[in-house]
C-alpha cells in the first residue's frame, strides 16, 4: 500500500525528469548548432579589434552600438561572436576528451572489476594514488608542462579523470560478475572475454553513458579553468574561460564581458549535468 502511494508521486517526478531531459538536451543541441555554424552566423569577426569601439555595452543599455548585440570587450571585440566561437572549443573538448576518458577509464574499470586478481590490485592502487592528487593543480601542471593547446587540454583531462570511470565501472562490474546470470553464461560455455562483452558490458552500459554525460560537463569546466589561468589555447582564438578571465579583471568597468560568457558556460555545464541526472533516473528501474 505504501508502494501505491509512492507510485503516484513517481509519475509526477517522471514527467518533471522528462522535461528536464528535453530542456537540457535541447539546449546542448542548440549550442552544437551554434558552434558548427559559428563562422557563418556570427555577426562579427571574433578577433577583429577596434579600440574606438572598446567596452561597448549590450544593446539595451545606453551607448550601445548597433550590430554589437552583447557589447564589446576592452579591445573592441564583439562579445556575442566570441561566445559563438568559444562554443566550438568548449564542445570539441567536451566530446573528444569526454569520449577518450570514458573509453580508457571504463576499459580499465571493466578489467579490474571482472578479472580481479593482479589487474584489480594494480588498477585500484593506481586509482588510490590518483585520488591523492589535487585534480585542478594536476591538470594545470600537465598543461603547463606539455605546453598550451587543445591536445594538451584533452590529454590532461583524460589523464586525470579516467579514475571517475574506473572506480564506478569497477564496482558495477564486480557486482554484475557475482550475479547468477554470469555464472550460467560461463557454464553455457562462453569464454571470459566473451562473457565480459556480451553479459557484463550491456548491464554496465547505462552507468557508463551517465558518467560520460557528466564527464563532458566536467571537461567543459576544466577547459574554462585552464583558459582562465591562461593555459588553454596559445593564439587569441576565443575561449569562454579566457573571456571570463578578461571580464574578471574589468568587472567594475564592463560587467557584460564577464556575465555573458559566464551565462553560456553555466548553462552548458548545467545542461550536461541535468542530462546525466535525467538519464540516470531514466535508466534506474527503481525510479522508472
Amino acid at each position: 500500500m505504501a508502494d501505491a502511494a509512492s507510485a503516484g508521486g513517481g509519475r509526477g517526478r517522471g514527467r518533471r525528469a522528462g522535461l528536464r531531459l528535453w530542456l537540457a538536451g535541447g539546449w546542448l543541441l542548440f549550442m552544437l548548432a551554434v558552434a558548427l555554424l559559428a563562422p557563418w552566423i556570427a555577426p562579427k569577426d571574433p578577433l577583429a579589434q577596434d579600440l574606438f569601439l572598446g567596452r561597448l555595452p549590450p544593446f539595451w543599455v545606453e551607448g550601445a552600438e548597433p550590430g554589437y548585440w552583447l557589447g564589446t570587450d576592452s579591445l573592441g571585440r564583439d562579445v556575442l561572436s566570441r561566445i559563438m566561437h568559444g562554443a566550438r572549443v568548449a564542445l570539441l573538448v567536451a566530446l573528444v576528451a569526454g569520449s577518450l576518458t570514458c573509453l580508457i577509464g571504463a576499459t580499465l574499470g571493466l578489467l579490474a572489476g571482472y578479472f580481479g586478481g593482479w589487474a584489480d590490485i594494480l588498477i585500484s592502487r593506481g586509482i588510490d594514488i590518483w585520488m591523492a592528487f589535487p585534480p585542478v593543480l594536476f591538470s594545470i601542471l600537465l598543461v603547463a608542462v606539455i605546453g598550451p593547446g587543445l591536445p594538451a587540454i584533452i590529454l590532461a583531462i583524460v589523464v586525470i579523470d579516467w579514475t571517475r570511470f574506473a572506480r564506478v565501472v569497477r564496482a558495477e562490474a564486480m557486482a554484475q560478475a557475482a550475479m547468477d546470470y554470469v555464472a550460467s553464461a560461463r557454464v553455457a560455455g562462453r569464454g571470459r572475454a566473451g562473457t565480459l562483452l556480451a553479459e557484463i558490458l550491456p548491464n554496465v552500459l547505462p552507468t557508463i553513458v551517465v558518467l560520460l554525460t557528466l564527464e563532458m560537463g566536467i571537461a567543459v569546466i576544466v577547459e574554462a579553468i585552464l583558459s582562465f589561468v591562461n593555459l588553454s589555447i596559445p593564439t587569441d582564438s576565443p575561449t569562454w574561460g579566457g573571456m571570463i578571465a578578461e571580464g574578471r579583471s574589468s568587472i567594475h568597468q564592463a560587467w557584460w564581458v564577464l556575465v555573458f560568457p559566464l551565462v553560456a558556460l553555466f548553462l552548458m555545464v548545467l545542461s550536461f549535468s541535468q542530462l546525466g541526472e535525467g538519464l540516470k533516473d531514466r535508466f534506474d528501474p527503481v525510479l522508472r
Partner: protein
Amino acid sequence: MSFLVVRGLSARLKGDGARLLRGVGLSVAPGEVRGLVGESGAGKSMIGKAVLGILPQAVEVTGGEILLDGTDLLTLPPGERRRRVGAACALIPQDPLTALNPARRIGPQITGRLVDILGWDRARARTRAEEALAETHLPDPERIMRAYPHQLSGGQRQRCLIASAFVAGPRLIVADEPTTALDVTVQKQILRLIAEMQARHGTALLFVTHDLGVVSKVCQSLTVLYAGMVVEDTGVRSFFRAPAHPYSAALLAATPRYTDPGGSLTPVPEAVLAAVRAEVAARDAAAEGARHG
C-alpha cells in the same frame, strides 16, 4: 468502565482511497488482555497504530472515535494527543533488533521518557528503570543500562523493551506481534513475561497477533478482524468452545493445535470467504449510502 474504547473507526489510503478499516469497534478494560487477530492485511496492526498515533503518513482516519479514559484522541491537537498517549500508553514492538536505537545506550532509552515527558528527576528515573529491568528477570540491570543494543541478544533486547514499556506504570499497552521475530524457545519465555508483567501492573493490554495459539494462552477476550471489519468480538473461552461467526470457525480450524499436532489443517473454505466478502461489500455500500444520503 473500559480504559480504551474504539468506536466506528474507519481509515483509508490517501492515494487511491482503498479502505483499510471499516467502522471498527472494540474496548479494553483495565487488567483485561484482548487479542486482536486476523490474517495479514486484516488491519489488526493498523488499529494499534491508530490508537498510539503512529499511522503511516499515507493512511488517513476517515471517521470514528478513539476514547482513552473517556477523551477522544482524534479531536485533540497533535501535541496534546502525543503527551497524553506518551504518559498513559506504551508499545511493545515486533522486532527487538530494530526497535532500540543503535547509537544510544539502553539506560537513556528507558529513562528518557520518564525525565522528558513525565518530568521525573534523573535519579528517580534511573532507580525505576533498574527496577523495571529486574522485573523482567534480566541479570545485572546496572550493566544492561550501560550497554549498547548490539551488545545484547535478541531475547535480552525484547526484555529491555518490555521493561521500557512498563517502566512508567502505563494504563494501556499495545503489543504488536511481540514474539514473531524471536526464536521459538525464547517466544514462550517472553510470552510468559508479558503476561506476568501485565498481571502485576493490572494494565489493559491489546495483544495484536495472527496466532490463535498465543491468544488461547494470554488473552481473556478477543476481536477477530477480516479486511478491516470486526467479524467477532467475544471471550476466549466461548470462542474456542464455539466461534459464532463462520469465518472465525474456519480460522480456528486452520490453526495448528498443540494438543493435536498431527491433525489435518483445513484452509478457510471458499464459500466462507465469499460470504464474509459479501458482508464487507454490504458494509461499504451502507457507508457510501450514509455519506451521500
